[in-house]
């Protein structure tokens, strides 16, 4: 019921509110002696070259996509895992088929070099 989740939600709110308090305390308490040099982007003491927001490798995108697919797989298995014994063998075989189907995808990605990082 909803009332069981009230403490949980409260804790999340408390956590973020205290984090905000920390942030404002940091900004309020800290010394302020700003110079232009201090405000530049740190690049090992050199004058920064260009903008940091450049396009980066598509591999990170591949990791995120694979993550979504397998994450959804994992999520679908949670309800089964809680009911393992009551559901019986049929459900277990169904889950194995499910995992095998996804493993085919995993294998395809492996062969195509989706997990290669070079």
């Amino acid at each position, binding site marked *: *019921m*909803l*009332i069981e*989740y*009230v403490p949980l*939600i409260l804790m999340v709110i408390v956590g973020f509110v205290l984090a905000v308090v920390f942030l404002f305390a940091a900004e309020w308490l800290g010394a302020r002696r700003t110079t232009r040099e201090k405000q530049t982007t740190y690049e090992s003491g050199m004058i920064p070259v260009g903008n940091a*927001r*450049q*396009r*980066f490798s*598509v591999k*990170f*995108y*591949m990791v*995120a*996509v*694979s*993550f*979504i*697919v397998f*994450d*959804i*797989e994992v*999520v*679908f298995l*949670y*309800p*089964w*895992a*809680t*009911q393992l014994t*009551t*559901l019986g063998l*049929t*459900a277990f075989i*169904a*889950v194995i*088929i*499910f995992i095998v*189907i*996804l493993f*085919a*995808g*995993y294998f*395809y*990605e492996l062969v*195509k070099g*989706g997990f290669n990082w070079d």
Partner: protein
Amino acid sequence: MSLTFIFFTVLAILAIASAIVTITARNPVISALSLVFHFFMLAGLYLTLNAQFIAAIQILVYAGAIMVLVIFVIMLLNLGDEEKLKEKFNLRKVIAVLLASVLIIQFFLIYLLTRSGKIEIAENTAKLSTVQSIGQVLFSEYLLPFEAIGLLLLAAIIGAIVLAKRKLT
């Protein structure tokens, strides 16, 4: 006023506000982040319906996985430039208005049809929406759709690889 009602009102207002920020913000990263916030509010709304599993999944999958991909793509394409995002083609606006009006009509229909009776969560929902009961139903009655989801996810992986590999070469 019941606890559920207070919860619903606060969450609904915040959800709508964050949705508006999502579509009006100029910076795509802020847009994406307010969508994440919106998903949190949606998860809260699911809790008011006793759908705990769906609430957790809403955060786990949408906020934790899909929006991470969206943020990655925003950074990947370096969409800092707001000028490029301006809409020039008008057909989309027409469709948007049409869909919005359908939604408003739907709201009124639901309101008119259910005005007589007080809307309450059905007796069984509290029992039906736990993780355990979802497992019971999904792995007995809906076994075939479950396997179909497996095939769908397989197609998603293959599609992603084909797209990414074509981009690389």
